């Protein structure tokens, strides 16, 4: 934190915030790991009642998965643009990322309501509970990500523009966003396809 002091810091040469973010993401693995484990255990059980496959709409989910995947591209492009200090492009790509994220979220909300109307409610049975909690937890992450992206975009609109240093910087948010994306890569396979 004391970047500007004569005081020594960062013996590893990694920016402290970025390091903190990576540490955070490493623990996120355990968060999602626990959720996925639970989901898999229950998915493999043979409890009577409505199954996941009764409600799934794979084409729909495939499209929204693809959208989230592409938001990772726009994110990395924003990062790239900022590295060459192209503020204009950075903002465009940031906004694009946020929008793609929002579309994904909208898709998830739609999917949830659809399932709900088919009688697949949170407390219907163990399949529905573990499904909603797992994908909902991921959705929450996406939501936070969208808010962060929009905030960044807002800061970018201000005079000084964005930098790659200090505070809540773009790299910080980008890491988070990509992480949310890779989690979905796993979830899409584990939850829907297998």
């Amino acid at each position, binding site marked *: 934190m*004391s970047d500007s002091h004569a005081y020594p810091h*960062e013996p590893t040469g990694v920016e*402290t915030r970025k390091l903190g973010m990576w540490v955070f993401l490493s623990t996120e693995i355990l968060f999602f790991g*626990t959720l996925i484990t639970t989901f898999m255990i229950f998915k493999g059980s043979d409890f009577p009642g409505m199954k996941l496959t009764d409600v799934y709409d794979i084409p729909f989910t495939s499209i929204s998965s693809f959208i989230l995947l592409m938001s990772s591209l726009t994110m990395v492009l924003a990062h790239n643009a900022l590295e060459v200090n192209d503020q204009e492009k950075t903002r465009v790509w940031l906004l694009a990322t946020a929008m793609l994220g929002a579309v994904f979220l909208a898709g998830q909300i739609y999917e949830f309501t659809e399932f709900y109307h088919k009688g697949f409610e949170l407390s219907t049975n163990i399949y529905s509970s573990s499904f909603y909690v797992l994908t909902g937890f991921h959705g929450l992450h996406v939501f936070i990500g969208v808010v962060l992206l929009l905030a960044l975009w807002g800061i970018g609109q201000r005079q000084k523009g964005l930098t790659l240093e200090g505070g809540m910087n773009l790299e910080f948010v980008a890491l988070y966003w990509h992480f949310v994306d890779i989690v979905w890569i796993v979830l899409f396979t584990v939850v829907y396809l297998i």
Partner: protein
Amino acid sequence: MTKIIEPKRQSSIFRRPSSETGIWSWITTVDHKKIGIMYGYAAFFFLLIGGLEALVLRIQLSQPDNNFLTAAEYNAMFTMHGTTMIFLAIMPISAAFFNYLLPLQIGARDVAFPRLNALSFWIFIFGGAFLYSTFIFGTAGAPEGGYLAEEVGWLGSAPNGGWFGYQPNAGMKYSPGTAMDYWAIGLQILGIASLISAFNFITTIINMRTEGMRFMRMPVFTWMTFAVSFLLAFSLPIIAIALFYVTFDRKFGTTFFLTEGGGDPILWQHLFWLFGHPEVYILILPAFGIVSEVLPTFSRKPLFGYAAIVFAGFGIAFIGFGVWAHHMFASAISPVAQAGFGLSTMVIAVPTGVKIFNWLGTIWGGKLKLNTPMLFSLGFIGMFLIGGLSGVTHSIVPADTQQTDTYYVVAHFHYVLFGGALFGIFSGLYYWFPKVWGKMYNESLGKIHFWLMMIGFNLTFGPMHWLGLQGQVRRTWVYAEETNLQFWNIVVTVGAFIIALSIIVFMINWIFSKRNGEKAPFDPWDARTIEWTIPSPTPVWNFSKAPIVKSLDDFWHTKYSEDEEGRAVKRAEADQILLDLEEEGLNPSEHIELPSPSYFPIVLASGLPFLGYAVIYKSIPLALIGSILLLIGGFGWGTEPLEEEAFEDSHE
């Protein structure tokens, strides 16, 4: 050339707090030392509460078929006792040590993220308060369809599912009311606090070390902080999710752990102990660190096998992740799993043994100064040894099926938790007392404390081994007269009161010495690590200029060289060096800025209990209040200018 220690102030949307003394300076502080001290006091307060709960338990158990407490009250008391001791006493006391000492030991001015540090402290406070508010707001009762002869009363309206809240007993059907919700959400909040500080300490250790402070030159206490932070970072997420499930089960009708809907109660055991076992090493490793600092200092010898001790610490942390099911030997797991976990549990004895032997190697051939911190450290070795060995008898699976859920286990874990963790903590409290307060504690009172505690402790927990083997099952509100357990139970109860007495002695010593103790020199113990190179009490700015570390035990080597036999010889210039250090420490020559205090950590943290209540009472307004507090906190935090950038613009 004057000292300028000023928190920077500049315009922002909210006015920055500026008090430097008084209550506001504490509430808004981001100084790791103040935070450490607050952690310490809060945790000690909870230790007393947890201890009082234990005394109440002991009174109930001093006679067979006693009716001092009702069943509901008894169950609430042992649950709160265990939960308090582990989550609100020992863990935060360790956090107090980490906070205060970590930056000092690695030569930093503060932790990596000072405001986050304040945040985790306040979350801890609000989490603790939230959990304890169950005594006022919580409700508990008989399981659905069951009957009670009398009202539950306030004492019984606390969580009552045991500190590991086994499902489905802790579910809504068998533990109706809100008490267990307070438990699940309270632990959730406390977990957030610990998780945040874990990130903070990991980054601090990796990235805030002063020049020359290579990894293999770090004090062992710092190493153990590092290991503990890893354990926290990787184990807390698991319990967080598991507690989510519990809350969902209890509040929103899901059935993760309930067989009715296809759930699995044993899964909860896995998830809990996946966290719970690393947790016990979270509790003991700080004490290992403290002991590894105290022994060399008072033996006037370097730590024997520094590298071995460090690697053993990480070995314990790592293997500690792979043994969780030893808490489930009698549970519904297969013999294959029993054998596997039995073996992995035994393996833990090896790195722990390495530590013990190296400590013995440290004192062997030394010149032992048996003052209070040293006594506690030596007592620690002796008592932890007993606890560790009974732990190994647990790992013999068939034998454990006799021991599990009896007082034999209670004896084991109090020997490691009290005889281990708490003895280590007391050792540290005495050892660093002069550094924190600039006063010396009273040695005679300290020794009285030690001996009283040693005797009381063994009277309390020693006979429990025997009681357990004789069939006293844990968590029993009453035991039958025919089981013939009364004699040793009375001894245990007496022992517990002796412990209470010893703690009173400790408190008297603390209060008295802090006020009237002798003034402490800045290196009262002729110590080895760099936190002793700064004045006592530690100045706000820690180091007046960044120390440069040239070796392990750097401070010692500035003071001493070795003669041809390898014996320590004081350097001629040692006294002068000390004088210079003191002079420079008190009157820094360089311009120093410190992170500015902030309101937002406490504001942000205060939102969490509201969200907790909102879930319990399914109340939208409370949720709104909570979210608004979070938003204000977060927004203010985000827009509060970052010290250094803003500072550069405005000052230089």
